[in-house]
């Protein structure tokens, strides 16, 4: 049903999903792909910084408690690099306390979502943040998200 590469438009906007817990990562990946995004994955903060810089995604969905390098530090590095600083970073954390949210925003995250976060809620937040970028992507010839999703729902590539 949702085989990744075959159905994904190579011009579709790219999202980097960072989470060390595979079940959660796969869930968001699958959902975002279903809705027409291209998705890259990272399992720790270091990998996240590296992929953000090499793949230049439109947005990063960043878990905060991560091995090797945590999400706060990874966000700081992404935002410190002139090349990657405009990438939207959405913190998505199982730490629901306001202190964590504050720290995340201080680190440079553009938004904060607490787990459990339903995939549709994440999608809504992403759309909210990416709308202007998406329209500019559309100008350069990338198909709009809705059209991709519609085609896939109809079972067409």
């Amino acid at each position, binding site marked *: *049903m*949702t085989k990744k590469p075959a159905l994904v438009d190579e011009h579709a906007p790219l999202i980097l999903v960072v989470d060390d*817990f595979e*079940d*959660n990562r796969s*869930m*968001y990946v*699958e*959902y975002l792909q*279903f809705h027409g995004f291209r998705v890259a994955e990272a399992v720790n903060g270091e990998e996240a910084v590296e992929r953000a810089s090499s793949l230049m995604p439109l947005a990063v969905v960043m878990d905060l*408690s991560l091995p090797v390098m945590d999400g706060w530090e990874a966000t700081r590095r992404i935002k410190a690099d002139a090349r990657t600083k405009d990438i939207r970073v959405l913190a998505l954390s*199982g*730490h*629901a*306390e*306001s202190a964590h949210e504050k720290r995340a925003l201080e680190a440079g995250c553009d938004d904060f979502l*607490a*787990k*459990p*976060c*339903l*995939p*549709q809620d994440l999608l809504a937040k992403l759309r909210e943040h990416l709308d202007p970028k998406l329209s500019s992507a559309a100008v350069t010839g990338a198909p709009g998200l809705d059209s991709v999703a519609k085609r896939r729902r109809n079972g067409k590539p």
Partner: protein
Amino acid sequence: MSKERRNSSGEPPGKLVSSKLAFLEALFGCARRSEVARLGADWIMRRTRARHVVVALVEDGADGRARLVGRSTRGSGASLLPSLSVDLDDRGHPLVRALRAPRSIALPAKTRDAIGLPPDGERYAAHALRSPGHAAGIGVVVVGVESPVPKRTGTEKATPSRDVRWALAMLGRRLEELGPHRGAPLAERGRSVEAKRSPDVAPREAPRSAEGIEESYGRLQLELVQQNERLQRQAVELEAASAAKSQFLANMSHEFRTPLNAILGYTSMMLQGVSGPFSPHVVRQLGRIDSNGKHLLTIIDDVLDIARIEAGKVPLERSSFSPAELVEEVLAELAPLVTRSKLSVSTEIGEGVPPLRTDRAKTKQIVMNLVSNAIKFTPSGSVVVSVSVGAPADGAKAARVTSIAVTDTGIGIAEADRSRVFEAFRQVDNSSTRPYGGTGLGLAICRRLAHALGGDIRLESEVGRGSTFTLVMPRRPLRNVRRRRASKAKGLAR
């Protein structure tokens, strides 16, 4: 006995104290065992008005065997009793028995005769001399008091008066200090040495000189320092425990949320058909996973809320806001619930209600909970939310509080259950938890939050008629209330 007691309490307490002090001074200023024994005998004789007092101490004889040797006796003099020498191995001898007995014993007539005490209307009681922490006696004091000679001459109990007990203890302590108590059997000697070395059982001696006072002062100072250190360590430990507790709560929360995220997320995806269509039957089942997963999340949130409030880990943010606006906001947010309930929900805003200065979000959480509870437990009729100055039945204090009352025409709560509704996991009828939904933690959280804000929640109810839950909030934060009160008092004084 009774005579003894009367004698010892017959004089004013001041005189007794100075008598005791004089005794101690003499006792601890004296370095010879025989002299100490005489002083002890004299003092006891005076206190009890006894005519005969014998002090027999345990001594090593020339042959190396321990004996009880009499030191002093008779009237006010210090005449030696060379005849009194009892072998410690003679365990049947009443004096040896007295030495080992836990309590004082009365001496039989033949022993009295044997140690040369006159039978002239006196009863003789033998008391063991011990120093603290020692099982074995280091001597025996025989006190003769005037009283009719009992017919029975057995080993009846002979309890000494408090003054005599005190004198015996002091005497024992001083004698123990002055020399090893060599006469005790070997096993007992070992124990006494050990007891003496161990700081826990070491007797606290009365200071006997300037040096002694200085020494005990130093010891007390050391104790104080050690105690301070202990307290400091405890404070640090408590702080660490509190930090560990909040860390634990944060971890718990995270550990619960991570798997729930996957459960709720995948279920939601399946319900949306991301993984393809399912039969209506499967969709219903998925719906149940979804609603139970969400319910579990609510419980976890509530339990963690309670834990946080109880651990004092709820940060409060103070602001000034209108309680009426807050109520309107709550009702607007609950509009879907209100519409579904078909109840008449209205507000009554009293005149001149001043703004509240407290944590707005927490206050809203409480009001939200009270109103949604009222709607939930009211099958038909109305819910009225009123805001007013003062509280029910509060008299003079009333003017300083603001009340937000939620009155419903619901099922009501019986008298016996009224305090229980604020306990965790309680809905009055446990079986009703399911039809009414919720975790049963709402009111428990509300009351704890209200307390944290310096307020309270009151409940009035009548079964079948309805309930009124009233949130009573101090209009100003506690500190300000105190300041205002102080200035008022000043104004009155003027």
